[in-house]
């Protein structure tokens, strides 16, 4: 029997693994991969809540059958679509910046990039 707690605990585990990657890795791309792990963990959590948790609109009208109210159960999935879109744009730009910096400084090490001036 798989319930909401299983999905949310799994999401928390992947989130803290991504956070560990962001905090300890020295390669910039490894930090970005940790950030992507965190995005994915949040998506799993939000979609699990969309499946298992009753939205407030249905708590207020328990006998609603109109489309606008019943569709609210999918709010978590819409949130996940937004997160995926913004994460894709951010990953593309961040990787572009990493490549430009690598061309200028020949290094992808976070500890060498602490000053913006060369």
């Amino acid at each position: 029997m798989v319930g909401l707690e299983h999905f949310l605990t799994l999401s928390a585990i992947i989130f803290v693994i991504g956070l560990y990657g962001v905090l300890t890795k020295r390669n910039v791309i490894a930090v970005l991969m940790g950030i992507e792990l965190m995005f994915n963990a949040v998506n799993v959590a939000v979609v699990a809540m969309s499946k298992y948790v009753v939205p407030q609109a249905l708590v207020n009208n328990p006998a609603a059958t109109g489309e606008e109210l019943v569709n609210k159960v999918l709010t978590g999935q819409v949130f996940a679509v937004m997160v995926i879109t913004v994460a894709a744009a951010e990953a593309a730009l961040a990787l572009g910046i990493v490549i430009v910096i690598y061309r200028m400084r020949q290094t992808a090490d976070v500890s060498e990039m602490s000053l913006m001036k060369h």
Partner: protein
Amino acid sequence: MSPSGIEQSGVFTAVWWIVAVMSVIAAILVVHLTDILKAALALVGVFLGVAVFFVMLNAELLAAIQVLIYAGAISILIIFAVLLTRDIQQGNPSNKLRVPALLLVGILLAVLVFVVLNSEWGLLREAQLAQETQARVAEVYSNSTPGIARLLLRDFVLPFEMVSVVLFAAVVGALALLRER
């Protein structure tokens, strides 16, 4: 609130545990491996595991989007960037903060799991909904794409347009990076 009661079955639970353990192992490999190309491939494994979870959560459109965008485009971008910034001697070491980060992350995980297990989630299957409402909800889950489309274009039209602006800003930023001085 399932259309077919599928999450009561043992096969579902077994598949869930297998995919969950594999995803967590892949995530640990992402942050642990020294060779960053292998870490990028483990990240692709995590993306596919998350897509399987979306299918298990009746979010088929989202699973397709996840495979297309994450396991498709973002993974290729990451591998592209890894190959263009190859640092042969260094690899991908950790900095000096390993033990404090491990402590912080352990405490955060404990707090999150405590909150998850002790919260009063308003579960859908415990809510006292009318019979017809339950049938309509099951119908919405079984065919989620029109529901997501209606939500995006009616209730959430403003975030939808703002995401368009974000994508536009990303394109302008990428062009600005390429500008010859």
